[in-house]
């Protein structure tokens, strides 16, 4: 792993059992990312993008290969260690916002930090307000998700991903559920955060327009990286 690399995977494979047969979804992925990178992960449906993102996000274990991040061997780490690691160093943005319907925008942004600490603190509240301000929703802090538009919800989801100051945000089709205008707003926001906060983003997409806004592109086909 190079000096600036935040994560590195090598020979990464993932098998799924389908009945008695096994399907090899990832067939030996070698990949690393440096701090501050904004990378697009492209590929058609079924190419393994989401599976790779899920493994990099420690939500699923790889079947083989190595997976290190910030000096931690995540293949060997226990589930509890992986959960703690995820909470401290990783952020997620999904195609659907997945905000908690019973919480306000501000409370949703605080949720990852409050879950880890067991309580909401004034410092968390202040940081969440800053983030909502940064994503352009200072006047929507006390709104429930049901009272916001799709684009606004996704911007809240981006703010939520940043609450713990993660090194890397994994975004799985973050604009896939938005109209073009909202998608552009979200991408502008991600780019701005990447530049101002030096947070790395790995964005899974099959939209060339999105990929064009990233500093690096990785193409995946049939479980293999074909261009990096």
């Amino acid at each position, binding site marked *: 792993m190079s000096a600036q690399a935040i994560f590195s995977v090598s020979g990464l494979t993932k098998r799924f059992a389908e009945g008695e047969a096994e399907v090899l979804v990832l067939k030996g992925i070698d990949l690393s990312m440096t701090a501050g990178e904004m990378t697009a992960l492209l590929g058609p449906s079924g190419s393994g993008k*989401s599976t790779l*993102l*899920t493994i990099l*996000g420690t*939500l*699923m274990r790889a079947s083989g290969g190595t997976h290190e991040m910030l000096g931690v061997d995540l293949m060997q780490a226990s589930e*509890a260690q992986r*959960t*703690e690691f*995820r*909470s*401290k160093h990783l952020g*997620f943005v*999904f195609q*659907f916002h*997945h905000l*908690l*319907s*019973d*919480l306000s925008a501000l409370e949703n942004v605080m*949720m*990852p930090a*409050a*879950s*880890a*600490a*067991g*309580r*909401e603190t004034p410092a968390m509240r202040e940081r969440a307000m800053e983030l909502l301000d940064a994503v352009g929703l200072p006047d929507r802090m006390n709104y429930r998700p049901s009272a916001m538009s799709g684009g606004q919800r996704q911007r809240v989801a981006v703010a*939520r991903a940043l609450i*713990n100051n993660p090194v890397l945000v994994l975004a*799985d089709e973050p604009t896939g559920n938005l109209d073009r205008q909202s998608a552009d707003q979200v991408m502008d926001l991600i780019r701005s955060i990447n530049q101002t906060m030096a947070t790395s983003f790995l964005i899974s997409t099959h939209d060339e327009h999105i990929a064009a806004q990233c500093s690096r592109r990785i193409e995946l086909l049939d479980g293999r990286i074909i261009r990096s």
Partner: protein
Amino acid sequence: MNPYAVKLAIRHLLSHPGQTALLMAGVALGVSVFIFMSALIGGLATLLTLRTVGSIPHIVLEMPDRDPATLSPNAHKHVVLQKDLSRRDQIAIWQPVIPIIEQTSGVTAVSPQIRGSAFVERGQTVAPVGVIGVMPGKLSDIANIEAAIVDGSSNLPADGILIGSRLARDLGLRVGQVIRLSSDRGRTRSFRIGGIFTLGIASADRQAVYMNFTTARALYDLSTGISRIEIKVEPATDAADIAERLRRSTGLKATAWTEDNAQLFEGLDAQARTGTIIKAFSLVTIIVGIASAMLLSIVRRQSEIGIMRAMGASNGLVISIFVLEGTLIGFIGAIVGAVAAWFALLPLPPVTEVSSGGLPIDRQQGDFLLAITLTTLAATLASILPARRAARIDPVEAIGA
């Protein structure tokens, strides 16, 4: 307790107020049934006990059985004991014993008595009766005869007696009439009927004849001794323990009312068991209801649980949220049910004043605290399995990533 788990549990409950209120109403109903059954079973036991022990002595002290001592204790020999039944066992030295009994804790009334069998003769009709000679002022210490007088008065002059209403009816007797009474010691005297009582106990109303202590002494040839000492205690259910203490302190044979009423206790036991089963069923209903509701809630919130897990929420936090949710439903439902039961039972009369056909409910025996505690515990238990299931939700599957 994790404050964030408490906050999320409360938010879950408030997000569907109708469903939460319905669940709590179900729990409240179960708790009301629990309390109602406790109050009814307890009240019924109190009523039966009151009615059973109200007019009888709780403890009777008599001379111990005086079997002749065997000369040889060798177990291989047959020994025949012969009792002289013609001799009347009397408590010869009884005055020093009375203060000992009165100072015994739990004892509320002491009545030294002279008892014996007799025949009442009226014309050609003869009826067997049991004579009870009571000391002045102690007529109502055991059975409340003064309150049971239906005709005449409760005064007991030397030539006066009080008889039961059934005896009066059987022999066609009225207050003021004079009857002849022959004791089993061969003494015969004439008495004027001073009063007629109805205790509601058939044997007493047909056979009991109350008379002056001194008159009875003469009728039964007891110059100094007495036949027995009857005692009332409080609470009546402690009679067996108090009887044992009196046996040790007085050396007399002490018989508690519980020994002669084993069937009553069996009946009360069976009744209590039935009540326990009904209460257990109401708790099971609460458990099933809460567990089902929690499972539904978890299915509905699957993706939210998944996102929390993905964002680093620990298993413990997820379990805490849902266990707290179930516990809050149980606790608040139990409080509501207990309060509702309290007010519902408020207008009912106390057991001592319940009329015939009325429900003998004793609110004090409603086990309110027990019902709240057990229901809250049951709700917590009911939530544990669904909560563990929530913690096992795979974030990847739940989010659909």
